[in-house]
C-alpha cells in the first residue's frame, strides 16, 4: 500500500496540510519541500516496514489526511475526514485536528530534527498503548492525544529574515501581486541586526504611489504616512487609528457581483495590511486587532445583506475599542490605584498612555505622590509624558536614563507600560525598559507593568535581537550650536548607527502585571492566553 501511513506522523503531514491550508499557490520552494518530504517518508516507511508492519498500519489511522495525489487511506477514516477526493483539502477537515494548538502560524520557531524524532517515537508509543483496548474507538481516542502532541512546525515571519535573499524575493513577488511598492532599506545595518528592515523617514512609501491613490484606500495611505512619520505612535494609538481607518474602508466598501462579503472583504484588507507593514512594522496589538476583525468578517453569514453586515462590523469595531482599550484602561487604573499609596515616589519611563492615564486618575482621586519621568534619546518621548502630567498638576522630576542609578534610591515604585506581553512572560517594551527593570531590581524597588489583555501575544522571545524594529538611523544625529557631528556617518566605513525601538524584559525583574483581568504575576501570561483562546 503505497499510501500506508506516513510513519513520520503528523509532523511532516502538518507541513503539507499547513501549506495547503494557507490556500495560496505553492511556491517553488514549497513544492520542492513537498517532494522531499514524500521521498523522505517513503524511505522512512521502508525502514519502518522492516521493524514492524503492524505498527505502521495502526499508525495510519490518525494520519489519514494525505496529500491529494496519493490515494486516500481506506481505514477508519475518522469523522475528521470528509473524503478529500478533490485537490484542495477543505480547511474544516483539518480544523478538528489542529483545534487547540492552532496558533498564528507565523510565529513559532522550527524544531530540530532530533526533537521531531523524539516526538514521533513518543506518539508511536501512545498509539500502541491506545490501540490495545479496542480498535473501534481508537480513531477518536488517538486523535486527542495526537493533537495535543502535534508539533506545529512554523515558518519564521518575513520581517526577521531580511538577509535571506529568497525570502526577500518572495516578499517582493507578493507585494507586486498586491500592487504595493516595495520600500527599500536604507544605510548600513549593524551586523547583529542585519536580518531586520531599516527604513529612512525621508523616503516615504508614498513617492512610489500615484497621488490620487486608487489601489489603496486613502484613509489607509494617510494612516501609513502617519505611522512612518511618527505622528501616530504608541501601541494603543496605533491600534485605535488602525481600527478607525478600517471603519472607513468598510463604509466605502461595496461587494462586487458574484462575491461574498465575508471572503472578499478579507481579501481587500490584505494589501492594506501589507502596505501598513511596509510603512512601519505592525505592532502586536495591531496584529491582534486585525485577527479579530478578520474573524468577525469571516463569521458574517452569507445570507446577510450588505448594509446589515457593514453596520454589524462597524459596531463590532466600536465595541472592541470600547471594551479592550477604553474600559480596560479604566479597570487597570482601578487596580493600579490600590497600589499607589500616599507619599509614593513613582518612576515612569518614556511615554505610556496607560501609565499616564493611571497617574492622572490617581491624582484625581487625591492620592499624594510625585513622579519621576525618565527619558531617553532619540525619541525623547518623556517630554510629552512630562507635559501631560504637569498639565494636570502632578509634581514631576525629569531625568535622562543615564541618571537612573542616581535617582533610584528616592523611588518607591516603578510603573512601566508594555508594547506586548509574550507567551513566556517576557515584557516587550520601549528600548531601555529592561535597564530600568534591572536597576530597580538591584535596588529592591517593585516594578509593576501595566498592560491590557489585547496586547498579549503568542510569540516567545528571550532576547531583543531576534525580532525587533530598526528605526531611521538619521534620528541619532543631533545638531548642537549649528554643528552636526554625525552628518557624514555613511562615509565612515567602520561606523554603523543603530536605532533600536524595542527590548525584552525577563519576568524575574517584573513583580506584578496589572491587566484588566486583575493583577497577575508575569508567569501567568500563558494561562491568560489559553483562556482567551478557549473563549474564542
Amino acid at each position: 500500500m503505497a499510501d500506508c501511513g506516513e510513519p513520520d506522523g503528523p509532523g511532516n503531514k502538518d507541513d503539507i496540510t499547513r501549506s495547503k491550508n494557507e490556500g495560496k499557490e505553492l511556491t517553488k520552494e514549497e513544492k520542492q519541500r513537498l517532494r522531499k518530504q514524500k521521498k523522505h517518508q517513503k524511505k522512512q516507511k521502508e525502514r519502518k516496514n522492516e521493524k514492524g508492519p503492524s505498527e505502521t498500519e495502526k499508525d495510519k489511522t490518525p494520519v489519514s489526511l494525505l496529500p491529494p495525489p496519493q490515494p486516500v487511506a481506506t481505514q477508519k477514516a475518522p469523522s475528521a475526514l470528509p473524503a478529500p477526493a478533490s485537490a484542495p483539502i477543505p480547511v474544516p477537515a483539518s480544523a478538528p485536528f489542529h483545534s487547540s494548538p492552532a496558533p498564528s502560524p507565523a510565529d513559532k520557531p522550527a524544531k530540530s530534527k532530533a526533537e521531531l524524532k523524539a516526538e514521533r517515537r513518543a506518539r508511536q508509543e501512545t498509539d500502541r498503548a491506545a490501540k490495545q483496548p479496542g480498535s473501534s474507538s481508537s480513531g477518536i481516542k488517538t486523535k486527542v492525544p495526537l493533537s495535543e502532541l502535534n508539533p506545529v512546525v512554523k515558518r519564521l515571519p518575513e520581517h526577521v529574515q531580511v538577509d535571506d535573499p529568497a525570502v526577500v524575493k518572495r516578499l517582493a513577488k507578493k507585494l507586486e501581486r498586491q500592487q504595493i511598492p516595495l520600500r527599500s532599506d536604507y544605510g548600513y545595518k549593524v551586523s547583529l541586526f542585519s536580518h531586520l528592515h531599516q527604513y529612512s523617514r525621508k523616503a516615504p512609501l508614498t513617492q512610489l504611489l500615484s497621488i490620487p491613490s486608487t489601489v489603496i484606500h486613502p484613509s489607509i495611505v494617510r494612516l501609513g504616512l502617519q505611522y512612518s512619520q511618527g505622528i501616530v505612535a504608541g501601541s494603543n494609538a496605533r491600534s485605535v487609528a488602525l481600527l478607525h481607518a478600517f471603519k472607513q474602508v468598510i463604509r466605502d466598501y461595496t461587494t462586487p457581483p458574484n462575491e461574498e462579503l465575508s471572503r472578499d472583504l478579507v481579501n481587500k484588507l490584505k494589501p492594506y495590511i501589507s502596505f501598513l507593514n511596509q510603512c512601519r512594522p505592525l505592532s502586536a496589538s495591531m496584529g491582534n486587532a486585525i485577527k479579530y476583525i478578520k474573524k468577525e468578517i469571516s463569521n458574517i453569514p452569507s445570507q446577510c445583506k450588505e448594509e446589515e453586515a457593514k453596520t454589524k462590523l462597524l459596531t463590532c469595531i466600536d465595541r472592541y475599542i470600547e471594551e479592550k482599550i477604553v474600559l480596560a484602561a479604566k479597570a487597570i487604573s482601578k487596580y493600579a490605584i490600590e497600589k499607589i499609596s500616599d507619599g509614593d515616589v513613582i518612576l515612569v519611563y518614556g511615554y505610556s498612555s496607560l501609565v499616564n492615564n493611571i497617574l492622572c486618575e490617581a491624582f484625581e482621586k487625591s492620592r499624594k505622590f510625585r513622579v519621576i519621568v525618565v527619558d531617553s534619546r532619540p525619541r525623547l518621548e518623556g517630554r510629552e509624558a512630562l507635559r501631560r502630567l504637569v498639565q494636570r498638576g502632578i509634581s514631576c522630576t525629569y531625568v535622562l536614563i543615564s541618571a537612573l542609578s542616581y535617582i533610584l534610591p528616592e523611588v518607591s515604585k516603578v510603573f512601566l507600560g508594555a508594547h506586548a506581553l509574550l507567551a513566556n512572560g517576557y515584557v516587550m517594551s520601549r528600548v531601555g525598559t529592561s535597564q530600568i527593570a534591572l536597576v530597580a531590581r538591584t535596588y529592591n524597588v517593585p516594578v509593576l507593568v501595566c498592560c491590557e489583555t489585547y496586547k498579549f501575544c503568542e510569540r516567545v522571545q528571550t532576547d531583543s535581537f531576534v525580532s525587533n524594529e530598526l528605526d531611521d538611523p538619521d534620528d541619532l544625529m543631533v545638531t548642537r550650536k549649528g554643528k552636526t557631528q554625525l552628518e557624514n556617518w555613511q562615509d565612515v566605513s567602520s561606523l554603523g548607527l543603530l536605532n533600536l525601538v524595542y527590548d525584552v524584559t525577563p519576568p524575574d525583574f517584573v513583580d506584578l502585571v496589572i491587566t484588566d483581568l486583575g493583577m497577575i504575576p508575569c508567569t501567568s501570561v500563558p494561562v491568560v492566553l489559553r483562556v482567551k483562546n478557549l473563549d474564542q
Partner: protein
Amino acid sequence: MELQAVLMAAGGGSRMMDLTYNTPKPLLPVGNKPLIWYPLNLLERVGFEEVIVITTKEVQKMISTDPKVKLDVKMKLDLVCIQEDADMGTADALRHIQQKVKTDVLVVSCDLITDAALHEVVDLFRAHNATLSMLMSKAHEFTETVPGQKGKKKTGEQRDFVGVDGTGKRLLFMANEADLDEGVVIRKSIMRKHPRMHIKTGLVDAHLYCLKKSVVDFLADNKSISSIRGELVPYLVRKQFSKSTNSPKVIDETHQNLKKNDKIQISSRDEELLHLTQERSCWNDHRGDMSDAYHGGRLRCYVHIMDEGICYRVNTLAAYIEANRLAPKLFDEPAVHPSAVVSERCLIGADSIIGASCQISDKTSIKRSTIGVSTTVREKVKVTNSIIMHGVTIEEGCNIQGSVICSNAVIGRGADIKYCLVGSHSTAREHNSKIAPEKRLTECHRAEVNITYHYKSITYNNCHKVSK
C-alpha cells in the same frame, strides 16, 4: 477617490499682453509645446486620471480644432468653459464648479512649469489632515535680457511675506506688500503659540494648492472671495489662529449643515476615535508649552518650499523666456524634431530646439534658441538666444538676437533684430534695416510695417512709422 485635479486655464496673461493678445495664454508655445501641456504632464506623471480644466471658449475651440495644438495626454479632460468677459477670479471659478467637486481638490494653474515632487505637498496634506497645503519655491533671478523692456525690472514692490515655523512646513503668516500699510503686523496669539517664526520674502508661489472639500463649500457660501491666491489663502492662514477656531468654526459648521442626520452621527463618532488616537499618541508638533498637538486648532495650513528644482510661473515675459530656456530639460524628446528638414551645413547648438516640419537651410546658425513648428529659416541666418514661434518665415541673411518672434511673422531679408519682440502676423522687412534694442513691434492681422532706422521707439498696430 482621494483628490480631484482642477486646472485653471482661464487667465488672460495680463502681464504679457504682447504675447497673449493673439494667442491665449494656455496655448503659448514653450519649448514647442503649449503651455498648458506642462501642468497636465505633471498631473499625468503623478498618476491622475481625470482633470477638470476651467478655460475659455476660445481655448476650448483651439484645443479641439487646431492641429498644431496637440495635447498628447492620456488623461480624461473635463473642459468647463466660463465667459471671458466675466472677469472671474480663481475662487469664482472654483465656486462655478462646486457641483463637480466631490472630494478634496488639487488646484493647479496653467502657467506652472515645474518638476517638483508633488507627493511632498500631498503628504503634508494627508498626514496632518490639513485644510490647505501649497507649494512654493525659492525665486531665481532672471538673467536673460527681456526684449522691449527699458531698464532694470523694478523689484521691491509686490513682495510676499511668508512666515513659517521652525520646521519650515507650517504656514503661519502670509501677506502681500501691497496689502500692508506701514509694516508687517503679526498677532500676539501667533507669537505665543509659535515663538520662532522664519519670515521669507524671496519665494515664488507656484499656485498649486491642495484644498479640503469643506473649503470649496465655504466658498460657495462666501461669494465675496474671488481670488484664491489673493484672498482665500491669506484668509485661511489668518483663520488658523483666530479665537473661534477652538470651537467648531465657520468652515466646519457650513460643512456639517450640509450633511444629513446620520452622517453627522457618523462623523461625530469618527471624530471621537480621532480624538482618542490623538490623546493616546505621544506626538506633538511643537514643544515648550503646555498645549496639545497643533495647539488644539482644527484648521492647519502647510507649505512645502522647494530648494532646488525647476519651478516657474510663466506670467511675465521674462519668465516666459526663462522657461523656454529650461523647458527642454523637463522632457526627453530629442532637440531636433525628426520631421524637421535640416540641411547639413548649418550649425545648431546643443541647447536649441527645432520644432516639427521646420525647414532650416544652409549656413544658418542657431544657438540657444527655440524654433517653432512649421518655421522656415532661409540661408545665412543667425539666430541667437531667441524664441521663434510657429509658422514664422525668416528670410536670408537675417540676424536675430535675444528676441521673441511671435507666430506667423515674416522677417524680411537682411533684417537685424536685436532684443525685440515682433508680434504675430507682422512683417518686418527692409533691406538692411536695423531694429534697435528695446523695441516692441506689435501688429495685428497682416498689416505691414516699414521699418527703417528707429531708436528706442515702439511701433503700434497698423501704422507706418517713418524714420527720422
